[in-house]
């Protein structure tokens, strides 16, 4: 896979598109993993939230009820 970066010089208007350096690719791969983990955590948290809401609903409660209790 080819990784490229585009650099737009705001002062001169010059645009350079080139392949990423080895370090840049390594940074990019690192970020890929980090972002994947972040998104997974967010997805997991969303699932936990949905489960919690389901439990509340089973008890006949809503998130508004929790807010009313100051929770």
């Amino acid at each position, binding site marked *: 896979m080819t990784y490229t970066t*585009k650099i*737009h010089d*705001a002062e001169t208007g010059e645009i350079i*598109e080139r392949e990423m350096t080895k370090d840049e690719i390594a940074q*990019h791969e690192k970020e890929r993993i980090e972002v994947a983990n972040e998104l997974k955590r967010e997805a997991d948290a969303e699932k936990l939230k949905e489960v919690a809401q389901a439990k509340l609903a089973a008890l006949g409660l809503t998130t508004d009820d929790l807010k009313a209790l100051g929770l």
Partner: protein
Amino acid sequence: MPTPTDLVTDLPADFEVFGQAVDTSMADLKGGTTGQILSKASNTDMDFTWIANDQGDITGVTAGTGISGGGTSGTVTITNSMATAIDAKGDLIAGTGADTFDRLASGTTGQILSVDTTTTTGLKWITPNPGDITAVNVTSPITGGGTSGDVTIGIQDASTTQKGSVQLSDSTSTTSSTLAATPTAVKAAYDLANTASTTATAAIPKSTVTTAGDLIVATGSSAVTRLGIGTNGQVLQSNGTTATWATPSSGAYTTLASGTLSGTTVTISSISGSYKELILLITNFRPGAANYPLYLQFNGDTGSNYGDTTATDATNISYGSARARMTAAQSATATNQQSITSIPNYANSTVWKFFTCDSIQNNNTTTTNYNYNRYAGFWNGTAAITSITMLTTQGFTAGNYELLGVK
């Protein structure tokens, strides 16, 4: 001579008398010559005379036009007046009017007869001009000529390489190189040129502008002037009377960079620090794989120095990311997206840099399938922001960016 009742007494004598009487009475019958005829000489009996046998019934000869003489008796003479008018060799008889004529004396040697209505006869002798031409020489565009006999001359056809005779044409559209324009064609061209001239006179001359960036500004009715380009960052302003370039005091937007999102990352570098705020517009962003958001990094900082949240509670800010989030996860196929990120005080070199971003995206197929997020975050960096990197971890397949500087 005795009467019938007389008594004849002397017959011989009577016969003699009778004979003498007859002889006397018939005396005119004597004589004459051969061929003559007898003609009465008077009304008296027996009075005759011998005459030549040339008697006719002409009783008179009257001279007509051109004839003179004539008579009514005896031998008459008639004369041709035209003939008698001739006095010398070469004389001509010429009419001078109805039934009139006159003598025209001969001219001199070599003269020729010429008509001249001012003379009595309408004619006169003139000396002909024999000419002294010995050669007919020609030069272009005349052709032909010669030095003897009948000579012929002509005019050669004109072309772009030689002069000569040309065919006229009324056309104003022909491309011929041999036709010549008529006054009709010239007038048609003149009329068009006149109209064009009028139009050109009313037009703004191109020479009004002299330098790249020049503008043409009206100074009044049908009057213009050149307005040279302003300095970098200036904007066109109105003072209510005319337009001028001026440095905006505040609020003016300047596009610092714009383009398309492509490749793995896009970085806007060399950002001027002469603005109060940066506005980053992203439209129709599409990641290389489904459900990945768009992130920001400043000044190439990939350290864990970013914090952001979509909640209103500051305690929910997630700090320690290596990038600041701008959008929710975006479909790889949705094309309708926009986000506006404000980075105020970006050029300050002593404080952290905050940003807020409003982002909305839709899959273009349903009215309920959309995401709206408002992100707020900061960069734990005090340096002035001079570059912004936009990235997804999947690369870009589409999208547009525009960075604005706000005065």
